[in-house]
């Protein structure tokens, strides 16, 4: 018996015009072009590789195949390897990651909001002290190298002074511990202005995420300002223009069956406003709306399935490329998993209550601790920390793209597993459904074949 077997995580695409094969290995993330002869040996499995091993002239080729994880030692267990890699990421003590909900209050009333109509709470000075203590204790016991904060809401900028004040204190705390610090803010963009952006930048906020759901009429219908007839769309666009060049902006377009067809019009509008054109500080992508909680149950019939979303995503990417935007990073990258299943990531509510996921913000039943108290390994917390898709989900164990998605969204797997009974692909990556098309798109973009004039 030979030394090698083909990896279980190889994916092949035939290139007719060249009579060659593309091979993507999901563990190493490598993409290569193969001669048909090598493809045939790989398809033959262990026996085919034995043929190569017996040929002294193929030593270098075997080494390269091995370097790319395309072939592995016969007794190498790739599932064990992936599980180990997954757990090393999950339990890595490198970074403490906090999402801080500065307020549950919001000045908008988005139709798909999952947070409900709780009494608006604002984080105050007491919470700042508690968070600082929480962080310092953990720095000392865990030896983190970095701290990352996501400012979240409600609308986090309704409590901007809290962000400014706590950021300063965090920066002061990080210094003697030599802790690298970074942050971002998820905002609806209605309150943002130049002065705020400058201040945030000085406080190490590296970017902001703002959602625009379509051209004005569509966006305003989906994301209206509370108790006002004022257009949030116009306001947001003006604010984005003001802050570009100060802070990078990430525009998220939440799409479903009712608004995806208007995406092109939005892109055109962003261009007309000088927002999209050649702007290195701006990035735009589509995301999906989902029935995360019962608070947004009314939107479920409009939501895309993963398959529908995947189709929309490819269309959207083609749209961008065709308009002259090189996406640059169309290629997928292997992920570990969401920080929600790590013991080093928490969401902190304005009252100090702890969660593991944004989707639980406002859900009192999901509280799993408090920032003022030691975190105990209670039942709720263990549900997250013990997330182990390769052991818990047979579909993931059998999936040859597991290294790419790491089991998908833990919130869905843990809290909405009933959905997966009816729709097995609900929590899968779009790559799983359209891998060949996505790789082809990447290659064409890389070769500049899809660009048109802008």
């Amino acid at each position, binding site marked *: 018996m030979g030394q090698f077997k083909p990896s279980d995580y190889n994916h092949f695409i035939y290139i007719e015009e060249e009579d060659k094969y593309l091979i993507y*290995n999901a563990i*190493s*993330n*490598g*993409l*290569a*072009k*193969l*001669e048909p002869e*090598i493809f045939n040996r790989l398809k033959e499995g262990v026996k085919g590789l034995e043929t190569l091993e017996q040929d002294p002239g193929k030593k270098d*080729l075997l080494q*390269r195949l091995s370097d*790319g*994880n395309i072939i592995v030692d016969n007794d190498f267990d790739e599932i064990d390897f992936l599980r180990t890699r997954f757990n*090393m*990421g*999950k339990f890595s003590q*490198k*970074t403490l*990651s906090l*999402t801080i909900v500065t307020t549950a209050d919001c000045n908008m009333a988005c139709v798909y909001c999952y947070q409900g109509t709780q009494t608006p709470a604002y984080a105050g000075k007491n919470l700042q002290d508690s968070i600082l203590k929480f962080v310092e204790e953990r720095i000392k016991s865990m030896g983190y190298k*970095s701290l*990352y904060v*996501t400012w979240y809401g409600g609308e986090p900028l309704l409590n901007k002074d809290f962000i400014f004040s706590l950021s300063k204190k965090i920066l002061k705390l990080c210094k003697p511990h030599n802790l690298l610090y*970074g942050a*971002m803010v*998820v905002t609806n963009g209605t309150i943002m202005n130049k002065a705020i952006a400058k201040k945030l930048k000085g406080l190490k906020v590296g970017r902001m*995420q703002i959602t625009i759901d379509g051209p004005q009429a569509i966006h305003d219908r989906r994301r209206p300002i509370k108790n006002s007839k004022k257009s949030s769309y116009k306001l947001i666009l003006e604010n984005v223009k003001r802050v570009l060049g100060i802070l990078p902006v*990430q525009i*998220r377009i939440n799409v479903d069956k009712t608004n995806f067809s208007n995406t092109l019009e939005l892109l055109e509008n962003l261009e007309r406003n000088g927002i999209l054109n050649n702007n290195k500080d701006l*990035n*735009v*992508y*589509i*995301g999906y709306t989902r029935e995360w909680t019962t608070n947004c149950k009314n939107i479920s019939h409009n939501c895309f399935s993963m398959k529908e*979303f995947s189709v929309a995503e490819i269309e959207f*990417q083609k749209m961008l490329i065709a308009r002259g935007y090189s*996406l*640059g*990073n*169309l290629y*997928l*990258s*292997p*992920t*570990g*998993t*969401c*920080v*929600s299943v790590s013991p080093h*990531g928490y969401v902190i509510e304005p009252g100090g209550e702890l969660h593991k996921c*944004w989707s639980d913000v406002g859900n009192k039943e999901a509280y799993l601790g408090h920032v003022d108290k030691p975190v105990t390994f209670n039942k709720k917390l263990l549900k997250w920390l013990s997330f182990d898709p390769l052991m818990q989900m047979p579909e993931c164990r059998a999936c040859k793209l597991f290294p*790419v*998605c790491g089991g*998908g*969204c833990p*919130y869905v797997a843990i809290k909405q597993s009933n959905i997966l009974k009816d729709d097995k692909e609900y929590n899968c*990556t779009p*790559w799983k459904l359209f891998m060949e098309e996505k790789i082809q798109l990447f*290659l064409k973009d890389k070769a500049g074949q899809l660009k048109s004039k802008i």
Partner: protein
Amino acid sequence: MEWIIQPLNGFNEVAAVIFSDCPSAFSTTSCAWYSECNGTGRMIIVQT
């Protein structure tokens, strides 16, 4: 055989995602499920 994208090797060469260079945080697509993490880079990845 010709590499188009070089493979990442072992544990150490897998790029860090959490911080500012996070490909999932500031890209349209490179993260496989950025939609779930809202593109914020909350994804963690193996780094030793």
